[in-house]
């Protein structure tokens, strides 16, 4: 690793001031699982590392206006084991549970996973399907961005120098909704996915037709992405085999995978259709269950 200045501010304002001072030369460290690994491999050589470890107030999970807000310093393990998240957004708690190993989840943070912008990560996929928004702060300013617009390119988040992810806000699903996150892991349980898919489905009050659905995919492009063409086939539709098939086919047209040791691009493209079909079927069944319960 290269030598670097290390700042450990105690307040958010101090952290933002340090980021402003160093601009492009600064990197933020929270849990460090991604950054330290990249620094050890000399993929990143920052002049200054700003640690959020001692910054107060960024580690809370709270219910707020029909949403759950996760502070940037919430660890994956805290998210996975949070009774609030397990009750309100079980699919998101489950997604965090599926990341890496407990050792990694004890360190890796919600905000870090977003700012890292690795297209192979799981939480962004589910957060896109849940239509979350990312809270971003800089010295003297604050903005919210829909998460689907947050991932610009391979390891490139929509963050300007001096900006910091401070929270992600996840709206609860409406009544008669279901969600699913699945990933295909041909190697080991703690590996990155070959293809990961999250789907949310909201049914009409009759419990039969789809009112709204969102489909998100990971590991199949330079960013996690939303399958809008596939979603468009779902509005007003009833679930049957041919619908599942055509939605999967539509998703195949939206992905642009890279060849790697987890599968060829062609294989990942085919698997995108399979996994979208499975996640859709599961989310739909859960939505139907929720609709029935509401009757």
């Amino acid at each position, binding site marked *: 690793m290269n030598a670097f200045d290390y700042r450990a501010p105690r307040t958010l304002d101090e952290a933002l001031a340090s980021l402003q001072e160093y601009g492009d030369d600064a990197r933020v460290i929270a849990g*460090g699982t991604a950054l330290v*690994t990249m620094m050890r491999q000399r993929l990143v050589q920052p002049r200054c590392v700003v640690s959020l470890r001692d910054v107060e107030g960024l580690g809370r999970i709270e219910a707020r206006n029909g949403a759950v807000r996760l502070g940037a310093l919430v660890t994956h393990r805290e998210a996975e084991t949070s009774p609030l998240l397990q009750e309100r957004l079980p699919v998101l708690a489950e997604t965090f549970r599926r990341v890496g190993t407990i050792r990694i989840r*004890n360190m890796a943070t919600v905000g870090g996973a977003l700012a890292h912008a690795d297209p192979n990560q799981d939480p962004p996929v589910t957060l896109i399907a849940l239509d979350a928004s990312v809270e971003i702060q800089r010295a003297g300013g604050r903005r919210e961005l829909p998460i689907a617009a947050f991932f610009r390119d391979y390891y490139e988040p929509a963050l300007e120098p001096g900006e910091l992810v401070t929270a992600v806000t996840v709206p609860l699903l409406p009544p008669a909704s279901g969600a699913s996150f699945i990933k295909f892991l041909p190697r080991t349980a703690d590996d990155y996915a070959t293809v990961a898919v999250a789907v949310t489905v909201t049914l009409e009050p009759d419990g039969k037709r789809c009112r709204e659905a969102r489909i998100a995919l990971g590991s199949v492009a330079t960013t996690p992405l939303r399958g809008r063409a596939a979603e468009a086939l779902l509005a007003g539709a009833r679930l049957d085999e041919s619908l599942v098939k055509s939605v999967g086919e539509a998703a195949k047209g939206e992905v642009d995978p890279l060849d790697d040791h987890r599968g060829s691009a062609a294989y990942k493209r085919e698997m995108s259709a399979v996994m979208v079909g499975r996640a859709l079927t599961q989310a739909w069944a859960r939505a139907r269950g929720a609709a029935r319960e509401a009757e």
Partner: protein
Amino acid sequence: MIRLTVNGQSHDVEVPTYRTLLDCLRYDLGLTGSKEGCSVGVCGACTVLLDGKMISSCIALAVFADGREVTTVEGLAEDERLHPVQQAFMDAGGFQCGICTPGQVVAAKALLDAIPNPSDTEIREWMLGNLCRCTGYYKIVESIRAAAQPSRA
């Protein structure tokens, strides 16, 4: 200068900012029980507890542990008496070459701290991040089961 409490003992250590916690333990404090395997947080050979939670010390900066409590494999035995997990690994033969064992033992201790009587599934889920290339894992699972329930072993 950072202050670490390692296995109950406080240390003031002068480290460069890029020092990993693992290197600090091994080279600054002479605690060579924790091993470097993969160097990317996957294999588990460098597993230590930070404030009671298991982490990969090879991808943690030493400065990240400033003011905190670290537990390594050297801190498990009390005086001359092995920790129950260590004893169980001895009794059940939960190792062969031994390189992964410090990490296995520390991870198993963390498991039993969190879930005193885990099911086999819970053991396997918890331990999936600690790789062993010798044992095939059966003896490791057996060792942990024995440590949890000495009477059933």
